[in-house]
């Protein structure tokens, strides 16, 4: 094992330890997270859609499940679990779209599991998860049709988006839906900030589970992220000071 390999493995183990420890701590001493307006508004918007018999549209973006885009896709699926559970009261299950076949299958499984948990498996339909287009722009061209045809009033975007994310968001804005969006790419985040009514910035994309009460592990994960970030920032500041005063070359 190389030194870097050992260090990487050590860091992963530290992460796992902190996540489990803080999840256990969370059960006894729950953390209070800052308010994120997008998540604060989501619950009400979903309830209104369910009561009005309208649909929730969940976009998992134009990325695939392989490679560096996996993180936001997994975060999207976590949030989908909670949204699907909240929407099971409705006769019309959420409709999930993606540009990757594997993500569509996982989305279908996620919705099916949510319906099974509330013993309403008969209301699940396979068309809840759809491949809209296999390329980013064909996906962006297909989403407005889904929003219109399915009478969606909640438009959630969580996954990998490039410039086409602005078109996907704009489709929701034009239909005057409740629109929430976040992605991992910094430039696309700037686009979504301008085009989405409720944008998620930076690590907010990964906080959905914790804010939507998906379990103590999600809240423990968020506390771990905060703790590690503070340690990294402290390390950077100490390093800067030491370098500035010539303590380290």
């Amino acid at each position, binding site marked *: 094992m190389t030194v870097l390999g050992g260090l990487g493995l050590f860091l992963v183990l530290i992460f796992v330890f902190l996540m*489990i420890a803080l999840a256990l701590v969370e059960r006894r001493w729950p953390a209070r997270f800052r308010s994120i307006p997008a998540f604060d508004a989501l619950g009400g918007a979903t309830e209104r859609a369910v009561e009005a018999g309208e649909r929730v549209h969940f976009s998992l973006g134009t990325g695939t499940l392989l490679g560096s885009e996996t993180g936001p896709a*997994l975060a999207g699926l976590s949030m989908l679990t909670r949204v699907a559970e909240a929407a099971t009261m409705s006769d019309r299950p959420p409709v999930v779209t993606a540009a990757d*076949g594997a993500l569509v299958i*996982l989305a279908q499984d996620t919705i099916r599991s949510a319906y099974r948990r509330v013993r309403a498996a008969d209301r699940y339909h*396979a068309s809840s998860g759809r491949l809209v287009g296999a390329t980013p722009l*064909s996906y962006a061209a297909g989403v407005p049709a889904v929003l219109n045809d399915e009478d969606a009033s909640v438009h959630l975007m969580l996954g990998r988006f490039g410039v086409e994310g*602005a078109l996907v968001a704009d489709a929701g804005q034009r239909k005057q839906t409740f629109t929430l969006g976040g992605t991992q790419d910094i430039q696309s985040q700037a686009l979504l900030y301008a085009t989405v009514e409720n944008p998620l910035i930076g690590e907010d994309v990964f906080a959905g589970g914790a804010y939507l009460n998906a379990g103590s592990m999600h809240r423990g*994960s968020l506390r771990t992220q905060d703790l590690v970030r503070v340690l990294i920032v402290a390390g950077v500041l100490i390093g800067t000071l030491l370098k500035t005063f010539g303590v380290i070359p």
Partner: protein
Amino acid sequence: MKRASTYLLAFIAGAAGVIVLLSYFLDLPYLSDISQWLKQTAVLLSAAALLIGLLNLVGVHLGKIGGQEKGWAYSALLVVMLAVTFTLGMLFGLDNRAVVSLFRYVQLPVEATLIALLAVSLTAAGYRLIARRPNLFNIAFMVSAVVFILGSAPWLILPGLAEPFGILRTWLAEVWAVGGARGLLLGVALGSITAGLRVLLATDRPYGD
């Protein structure tokens, strides 16, 4: 029985993830081989999933055509064009003139049009942003965007202003934007790590219960 299958799925997913993760840190030949095989299998499964996704796409649109639902004519067009492209590609290969022409004269112009629409969409979004949430951050966001445009675009009138705006643009891009982007990237990286580890620990099971 269902519970056993849930545990089995969680075990398989977790084990595969741990093997691939460990292969990045440990220099063991057999671990590297298994990891490589798992990654190749994932790519193959992903390709198969795309085919299933296409069948799902056709199924959804055939349902709309059958039920004469809103926009069924567009669904019919999509299914016909998909069938034509797929058949041509399968019979004559991707280098065939007809297949290449379909991409060059249908897909590319449509995608280029969408990109052109983006400029209009973003201008409208900028206006809506200020109208909807006129706070300090949004005003700073819009002012920065305008400075970037003025600092990058050619100045046909008042060319003397090109240099100061160029300097301001560079300062904003290289100091403020890079600093902010690093902070955001740090958060995204930490979030990605915890999201992945939750799947390895089977607390998140996107493959269903």
